[in-house]
């Protein structure tokens, strides 16, 4: 009995998978805003998907603001990552602890400075969440640097390690 059922399952499974793949691809091809099949999950792609509510800042703009000392960087990653290395002068505000730590951290931000949140990997939306959170708290000049840590290193911009600052 189990054998005949197993045989049934054996041909049913690939057909069910094929039907689903067909429906998915078909629907995706027909719908208005289709998702590209082979999308590189690079900075732009994620930036486009993640956020409508926070401005995404490019690495060039961020670097310029860094050089002119116009922005404070907030590291949204967990503290251990921050200690291993972070953007020079950045403050650590892990997303997980944002609610408890934000007041303490926010006090360190000089008035009039823009805030740029960042984390690591295009596949990380912590910075975006943190930026939205800060916006909700009433900060005006908040933007998110997608894939910040990787992009920062790629451009050989200054970094710090340890718990300083």
């Amino acid at each position, binding site marked *: *009995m*189990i054998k005949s*059922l*197993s045989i*049934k*399952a054996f*041909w*049913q*499974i690939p*057909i*069910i*998978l094929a*039907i*689903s*793949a067909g*429906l*998915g*691809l078909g*629907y*995706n091809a027909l719908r208005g*805003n289709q*998702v*590209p*099949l*082979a*999308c*590189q*999950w690079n900075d732009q792609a*994620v930036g486009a*998907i*993640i956020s409508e509510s926070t401005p995404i800042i490019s690495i060039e703009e961020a670097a310029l603001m860094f050089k002119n000392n116009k922005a404070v960087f907030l590291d949204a990653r*967990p503290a251990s990552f921050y200690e291993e290395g972070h953007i020079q002068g950045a403050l650590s505000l892990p*997303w*997980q602890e944002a609610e408890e730590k934000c007041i303490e951290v926010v006090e360190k931000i000089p008035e009039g400075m823009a805030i740029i949140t960042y984390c690591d*990997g*295009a*596949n*990380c*939306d*912590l910075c975006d*969440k943190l930026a939205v959170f800060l916006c909700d708290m009433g900060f005006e000049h908040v933007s998110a640097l997608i894939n910040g840590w990787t992009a920062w290193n790629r451009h050989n911009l200054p970094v710090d390690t340890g718990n300083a600052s």
Partner: protein
Amino acid sequence: MIPRQNDNNRSIMHSRIALVIRLILGAVFIFAGVPKIIDTAGFASAVNNYQLLPDALINFFAIFLPWLEVVVGVFLILGVWLPGAVIIYNGLMLTFMAALVISAVRGLDISCGCFSTDSADAIDWKTIARDIPLLLMSLYLLFAVFVKNITNRRRSPKKTATCRPNRRT
């Protein structure tokens, strides 16, 4: 006579329980799949956040999985191709559990992407606990289909009963 009667009652009970569970599990998957079909891009982002799949597969997975959930859900409800559908259901539940546990252990702070693509639906141990009853129900269904053989009994209980005396004579 009596044991056979008991047996019959039991199999009726199993197929009734299985029917209720099929309806529940089918509805859960349809309910989970539709929002992801509507917001495929958001779901792709959620899949990406799990950091489990290579980049090249993420979008295909995000396009494919919600439909698989809906198709399997519909099949469960209608009772079509139960052996295949039930195995896929169990496979998916185990995969989801594994992905959630891995993410929780790795301490990823990401959205679940389970029943919506809303990032407020974050992963924690509660999300994992929520899956346990579903997993148990789907395991029961596996048992009911493959061991208790509810699919065959459901179709022709009377025929087999009338056949028996014929065979004996």
